[in-house]
């Protein structure tokens, strides 16, 4: 039987794997957490909204932000638009630097760490909910962004 997995096939298919991890098999380390306890989508939505507002508040395109942070455009798009996307720690570090907020709090919102203080998470979700995603920042969005920055800054209620 002819082997259909040729080098050409491999190269034509390799792109499927970009941004994905492929693994299979019984782990027997930690049982997989129940899906409803896996990092909150709500707080990840707040993170996405914050990045989107903060970026637009500075008049930046995704491309510009990608260049400044040296983070892939795809990763930034996923953070802004996909509440299931798990950002990596380096990306959050870069974003925290650019937007002048706390990396620890961004990690907490992303679900990478479990925040000890849940107050800022709730507040961030509340501010994020105030904003509506439209092309330009409205006064209300500006207010939501100011609120998010205050909540996610290092100084306020660590």
């Amino acid at each position: 039987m002819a082997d259909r997995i040729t080098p050409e096939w491999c190269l034509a298919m390799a792109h499927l794997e970009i941004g994905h991890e492929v693994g299979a098999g019984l782990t027997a380390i930690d049982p997989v957490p129940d899906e409803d306890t896996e990092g909150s989508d709500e707080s990840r939505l707040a993170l996405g909204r914050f990045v989107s507002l903060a970026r637009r508040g500075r008049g930046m395109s995704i491309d510009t932000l990608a260049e400044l942070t040296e983070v892939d455009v795809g990763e930034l798009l996923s953070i802004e638009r996909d509440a299931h996307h798990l950002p990596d720690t380096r990306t959050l570090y870069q974003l925290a630097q650019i937007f002048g907020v706390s990396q620890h709090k961004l990690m907490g919102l992303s679900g990478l760490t479990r925040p000890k203080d849940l107050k800022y998470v709730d507040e961030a979700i509340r501010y994020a909910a105030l904003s509506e995603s439209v092309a330009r920042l409205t006064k209300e969005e500006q207010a939501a962004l100011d609120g998010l920055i205050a909540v996610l800054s290092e100084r306020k209620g660590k």
Partner: protein
Amino acid sequence: MTPPGPKSISQVALMDAVSGAGVPAEFWQPITDKNLADWEAHWRPAIQEQLVLLSDAGVERHLWPQSREWNWRKKHNALGSSLSNESAAVMAAGVTQGMMIVDLDFRARIEEQARQHMVYIDFLEVAPWNRRTLTGGAPRYVGIGTLMIGKAIQRSLELGFKGRIGLHSLPQSNDYYANQCGMRDLGSDANYNKLRYFEMTPDMAERFLMRGERSGR
């Protein structure tokens, strides 16, 4: 005495993640001492390094690579002379880039092919430097997992199993099997650490192979 090499070698290819260029690679059957030595000398230290970074960054343990305690030497030794298990490795740049063990005695679960024979992927792992990590590490080569899935389908065809394959996905790979491979998601399996079980029918397998054949031309 030179240790025994693989019984069969076929030519495959990987993609360099940075340049996008093709990299020649080989598919070895079965796993050899060289592959296990690579796992000990290269994979394990790299995994340890990643765990230190994840730990330092305070990343939740359930987000750490789930295969971090897999011991390929033990897995390999457990196979013995069993006809039901087969193993394979992907080699490029002189180093093992991925390994896989399959089982030929599992039966399919999707209703329309329930109890039919299939190739069950017991274990599939890609070398740690070829994975995206939560600490910002970028993969070196891509396409290793995809080619191993392709080879499992090929094996299923050779055995008369029509391309049917099944596997329990690591949590970080669910999206890949469902959306990139087009496998059927049969949900979380209470008997397997709650891992999600995925399966391919002959139709799905054929579509998967055809995708690479059409765009490859």
